[in-house]
């Protein structure tokens, strides 16, 4: 029997977790900025939010697919290097990237993106690279998939270390504008929490990571955004609501 009551209940259950998590993040931000107001702690909170973003990304992929991805940091690197190349002031780039190929030079040197554009450019570059690697990886399951992602990580690491004309190898990239603010990282975290909870599946029988059989788990899941169509499952514990 599907009444309006169950429908509202399902909607509440869908938005409850992201709402609570976002509220917690805002609470942390308020405590750090309003009560503590110390540079050390606001720096640490920025790092905390940034790491949380990486964990959310990893959780979105590994938590839903059952593939243990060791290679996620490779995409972090792609985003970092792309945004660094495009945001460093032209004057600095002209003497730090002397041996860059001319094709890239004409395109990268004039670019002086602001924080927004740099973030988006880095994200899009990582998205493209991840898509290229993702197409073959999704055909794998279990240990083979994990090792393939590890191979991505190693390949990317070697590429960055050895292609010094573009990445400056093991040297530091000088002059990246430090535009990251705590409020911006907080907004990104909240923006990431919403989709990650929207695509969160509830595996009835989680995929076997070792033997790599996905089994029926893909069918037997109810996504929260489907809760309007599918009647919600009975609450797991009395204290959940």
């Amino acid at each position, binding site marked *: 029997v599907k009444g309006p009551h169950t429908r509202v209940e399902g909607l509440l259950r869908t938005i409850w977790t992201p709402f609570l998590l976002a509220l917690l993040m805002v609470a942390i931000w308020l405590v750090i900025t309003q009560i503590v107001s110390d540079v050390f702690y606001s720096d640490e909170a920025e790092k905390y939010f940034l790491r949380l973003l990486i964990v959310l990304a990893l959780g979105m992929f590994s938590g839903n697919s059952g593939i243990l991805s060791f290679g996620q940091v490779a995409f972090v690197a792609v985003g970092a290097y792309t945004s660094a190349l495009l945001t460093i002031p032209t004057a600095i780039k002209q003497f730090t990237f002397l041996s860059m190929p001319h094709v890239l030079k004409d395109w990268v040197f004039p670019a002086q993106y602001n924080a927004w554009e740099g973030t988006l450019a880095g994200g899009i570059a990582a998205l493209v690279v991840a898509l290229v*690697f993702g197409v*073959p*990886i999704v*055909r*794998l*399951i279990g*240990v*083979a998939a994990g*090792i*393939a992602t*590890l*191979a*991505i990580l*190693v*390949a990317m690491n*070697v*590429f960055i*270390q*050895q*292609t010094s004309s573009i990445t400056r190898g093991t040297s530091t990239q000088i002059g990246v504008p430090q535009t990251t603010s705590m409020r911006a990282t907080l907004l990104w975290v909240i923006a990431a929490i919403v989709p990650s909870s929207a695509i969160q599946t509830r595996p009835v029988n989680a995929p076997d990571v070792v033997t*790599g059989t996905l089994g029926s788990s893909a069918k037997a899941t109810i996504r929260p955004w489907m809760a309007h169509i599918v009647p919600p499952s009975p609450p797991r514990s009395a204290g959940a609501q």
Partner: protein
Amino acid sequence: VGVKANWVISSAFAITGFLAAAVTVLYMLNHGDVRPNVGQGPLLVAFVGVVIGGLGSLGGAALGGFTLGLVINLLSATLPRSIQGHTLMFAFLLVILILVFQPNGIMGTVDKLRRKRVPAEVPRVAAEEAPS
């Protein structure tokens, strides 16, 4: 029935630890110096080698190790000097390709080929008993 699984697995783990240490002695005698990060290279090769060979078979592990060693050495011998540093990158991209086409490792495919010789309907055990 009377085998204690926990005990067997932990003693097997201990034996592999002993073997790994024995290998390390030889490896270090070859190298001549010890640093905290000296194990990073062998770690990656061991991990990847065991999986591309095929988990769960001794021959597979050895074959995987040999394959990876062969690939890395062939690449570093044939690549032009300008991209010599990228050897490991090409090797690991090749590993991804091997995994995509041989998800169960090289030994997994060998097993599958071996099983194909036996008629599909007849269970494997029965087919092996038939000649005797």
